[in-house]
C-alpha cells in the first residue's frame, strides 16, 4: 500500500493574538490517501484554513508533525518548504489570487517558469492543454480583470494543476462564487481528480459542495470531530 499523501500526527497550532493565545488546532490526526477528493468542513473559525495551511506548507505546526508526500514540513528549511509547495502542491484560493498584470496564459505558465524544468515549447503545450481542459482555450490572452469570477477560478484551477502536483489544496474555492458557478468549479476539480488521480483537499461550509467529496473531515474548535466517507459516516 502506497504511503499516504498527507499524514498529520497530533498536530497543534497556537497563534499569538496580542496577549491572548489562540488554540487554532489541537491534537489533530489526519491521513489523506492518494487520489482522495477530501472536503474539510466546519463552521467559521473551526480551523479549516489553519489545517490547510499546515498541509500546504505555508505554515508549520506548533506541535506534532505534518508529512506531505513523505516530507516532514517542520524539518524543512524555508527554501526547501517553498520548493515542496512548488513541486508537490497546487493551490486554489478563495479569492482566486491571480497576478493581475499577467495574462491568463502567463498566470498558468507561472509555476512552470518557477520550476524551470520545461522548454518554452513544452510549457506552451502544457498550458494550452490545461486551458482547454478548464474551458478557457479562447481566453489565453485575456487579463484576469476581463474575466468573470468563475472564469478566474478556472484559471486558478489550471494554474494549480499545471505542474502536475500530486496534491491540490483549495481553501473555500466556491465561497466567492454563486452556487451554480461554484458547482461547475467543484465538478471541474472532481473531473481532474478522477482523470489524473490528483488528490484534492478543499475546505468548505457549503453542504452542496461537500456532497461532491469522497470523504468529509469535520472540524470544530480546532479538533477533528468526525470523518465520513461519501458512502457513509466513518468516525475516527
Amino acid at each position, binding site marked *: 500500500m502506497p504511503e499516504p499523501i498527507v499524514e498529520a500526527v497530533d498536530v497543534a497550532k497556537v497563534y499569538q493574538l496580542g496577549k491572548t493565545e489562540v488554540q487554532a488546532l489541537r491534537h489533530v490526526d489526519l491521513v489523506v490517501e492518494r487520489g482522495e477528493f477530501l472536503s474539510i468542513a466546519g463552521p467559521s473559525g473551526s480551523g479549516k484554513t489553519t489545517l490547510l495551511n499546515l498541509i500546504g506548507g*505555508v505554515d508549520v505546526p506548533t506541535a506534532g508533525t505534518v508529512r506531505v508526500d513523505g516530507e516532514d514540513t517542520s524539518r524543512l528549511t524555508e527554501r526547501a518548504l517553498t520548493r515542496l509547495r512548488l513541486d508537490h502542491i497546487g493551490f486554489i484560493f478563495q479569492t482566486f*489570487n491571480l497576478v493581475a*498584470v499577467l495574462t491568463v496564459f502567463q498566470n498558468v505558465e507561472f509555476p512552470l*517558469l518557477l520550476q524551470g524544468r520545461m522548454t518554452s515549447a513544452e*510549457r506552451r503545450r502544457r498550458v494550452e492543454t490545461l486551458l482547454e481542459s478548464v474551458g478557457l482555450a479562447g481566453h489565453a490572452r485575456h487579463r484576469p480583470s476581463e474575466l468573470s469570477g468563475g472564469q478566474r477560478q478556472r484559471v486558478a484551477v489550471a494554474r494549480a494543476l499545471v505542474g502536475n502536483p500530486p496534491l491540490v489544496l483549495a481553501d473555500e474555492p466556491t*465561497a466567492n462564487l454563486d452556487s451554480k458557478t461554484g458547482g461547475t468549479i467543484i465538478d471541474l476539480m472532481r473531473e481532474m481528480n478522477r482523470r489524473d488521480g490528483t488528490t484534492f483537499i478543499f475546505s468548505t461550509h457549503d453542504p452542496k459542495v461537500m456532497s461532491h467529496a469522497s470523504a468529509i473531515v469535520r472540524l470544530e474548535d480546532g479538533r477533528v470531530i468526525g470523518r465520513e466517507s461519501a458512502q457513509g459516516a466513518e468516525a475516527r
Partner: protein
Amino acid sequence: MSGSSSSRVHQGRILVEIAMRNLVASRVRTTVVGGIVALGVVVVVLGSSLLDSIDAGMTRSIQGSLGGHIQLYNAASRDPLALYGGTMGESVLEPISDFARLKGAVLTVPGVRLVVPMGIDQAMVSMGNVFDVALERLRADVRRRMANGPPAEDPEYEAHKAHLRRMATLLQQELRQAREIADETSGVYKDRKADFDALARAVEGGFWEHFDEDPLASLEFLENRVAPLSMDGGFTFIRYVGTDPEAFQKAFPGAQVVEGAPIPPGQRGVLLGKLYAEEWLKLRAARRLDKIREARDLHGRRIAKDEELQRWVKENTGQTRDILLQLDPVRTREAVRRLQAALGTKESDPARLVSALLDTDDRNFDARYRIFYAELAPLLQLYSVKVGDFITIKAPSRSGYVSSVNVPVYGFVEFRGLERSALAGMMSVLDIHTWRDLYGYLTPERAAEIARLKERAGATMVAREEAEAALFGGGDAPPAPSSAPQVIDENRLLAAGGGKGAREDLFLRRYGQAETDAGVALNAAVILEDPRRIEETMPLLVEAAAKAGVRVKAVTWLEASGIVGQSMKLLRMVLYLAVLIIFAVALVIINNAMVMATLQRVKEIGTMRAIGAQRRFVLSLVLVEVVTTGLVFGGLGAAAGIAIVRVIGWTGGIAATNDTMYFLFSGPALIPRLGAASLATSVAIVFLVSILSALYPALLAMRVTPLEAMQSDDG
C-alpha cells in the same frame, strides 16, 4: 534538465514582464518616480557638460594667459602665490633673487618647455589731464618759435592758445557753479578764492594778448596755477606682471596684443590691459555709451525702463566738458559742422550739440552711437593713454621708498577668455627691468652690471633709432608730435631723478637674454610639453631647483589662480550639491512609492510565495522594477540632456549676460560639450540610487509570507 537554462531566461523575462506591467499599471507612480529620475539625470548631464566646458575653457584661458602649467615661488614665502590676487590683496612673496639659476635648473627637468620669470604687483599710475596735453602742445610750439624764430603766420600756435583759453573758460564755468552752491563764509571757500582769481586771469583777453611777451612765464602760470584746478586725470591703480616679454609671448598665446605692438625683445615697455584701458582710460562719455549698448544687447535692458541707464544718459548729456576740453577751435568748428549735419539741426553751440547727441533713448540709440564713433570720436582722443605715450608708475619699493618710473606704452593686451574678468583682464604686462626698478631689489653686483651695460648699450643706440622713431613718432597720431614723449618725460622726471639723456638711453637700451634672466623675480611660470604631466613634474622641479641652491615651492596653475580657481571648485560643489539633493529626494520618493506598491501587492506577493516563488524571486521583482524605472527614465533623461546640450550648441551656446558669466565661459558664449564621463556618471548614479531606494521595499517584500495569500474574509 534541458529546459532549465531556457526557463531561467524565461523566469527572468517573466520578472521583467511583471515589473514592466506593474509599472504600466500604476502610471501615475511610475511617471512621478521616473520624472524625478529623468530630471536628476538631465541635471547631471547638462550640469556636468556645462561644468566640463567651463572647466576646459578656464583651463585654457588661465594656462594660456598667466598660469602656465606649474608656478614656482620662493619656499620661504609666507603667503601662497595668487596670480589674480587673493582675498586679502596682493600676496607677499619672498623674491627669487637669481632667476637665471632657477631657470637653468628647471630646464634640466625633462618635459619642461619654457620658464618665464614673473613679478606681479600693483601700483599707481599718474595719467595727467587734458590741460597737460594741451599745454605740452603749446610748449612745443613755443620751443619751435624760440628755436626758429616766430613765423609770420602761425595758425597752429594760435589755435593751441585759443584751445587753452577755451578750456580755462569751461573750467571757470564749471567752478562757478560749484561756487554758487558753496558757503561763501567757509574756510575752504577762502582758500579757493586765489584759484578762482587765477582762473579769471587765464580767461581774460589781456593775459592772452600779452602771452607772447614772455611765453615761458605765461606757460608756467598756466601749468602751475590753472592746470591743477582741473580735477580729471590724477591717479589710477594698475596691476601688472613684470616679465620677460619675449618669453611671455611664447609661453602665453592667450595674451594677445590688440592694439600697438609687442614690447620689442629685451626692451623696456608696458602693454596695458585692454579691460583696464576700457574701464579707466577711456573717455567717460564713450565708455557710458558702450555700457548702455552692452546693457541693452546682452541684458535686454531698456533706457525707458532702467534707472541706471537713464542716469548714464543724464551724466552723458550733463558732462560734456571732457569732450569739449579736448577740442581746439579748429576741431570744435569741425565737430559742430559734423554734428549739425548728422543730427539735422542748426544749433551752433558745441556744448548743446554734444549734449543733444548724447541725449539718447531706446529709439535713437543705435544712430547716435554710430554718429558718436563715426563723426565725433575721430576728433577726440578716446583713451587718455595711447600707443607711444609714456606713463608714470609709482610703487612703494621694498626699501620703503616710492619708486617712480616712466615707461613707454607699446600697446594694449587682452587675455583671451579672460577679456572681461575684472580679476584677470585688468592685468598689464611690464618688462622685467622696469618691474625690478619698481620692486627696488637691486643687489650691488646688479647695480655694477647695469653700469657696465649702460656703456655697452650706447653703441647700439643709433642702430635702433629708426625703429623707435617709427613706433613712437608714427604719423597717424596727430595730437601728439613725435617729440611729445620726451616732453612729458621731462615734466615727470623730478621724482625719479636723473637727467633726460640718461632716461632716453634707458628706453632704447636692448637687454640681452642673460641680463633679463639674471636678477630678481617673484615667481616663475613653467610650461610643459605635456600638460598631463603636471603632478609628477612638480617634485622634480623642486628637487632640481634645490640642487641648484634655490628653494622653491611648486603649485599647479589652478592653485596659483587663487580666487579664480576656487570659483571653479565652488561651481562644481554647487552642482554636486544640487545633484545630491535631487537624488536624495528621488531616493526618498522612489522608496516611498515602492513601499506603497509593495504594501498594495502583499496578497499578490504572498500568492507567488505560496505557489512556490523563492524569496530571491520576490527580491528580484522589486529590484528589477525599480532599476528598470531608473534605467528607462534615466535613459530618457540622458537623451533629453544630450538633446538640450545639442540644441544649446546649435543655437550658438549660452550667451554671457554679465561679466562674471563672460569670465566663467571664457568668452561671449558657452557651448557645452558632452563628456562620456558625465554620461557614465549619470548612469552610475541612477543605478546606485535605484538600488538603494529599492532595498527597503525589497526587504519588506521578502518578508511577505505565503500566509498572506490565504487571508480571506473568514478564517
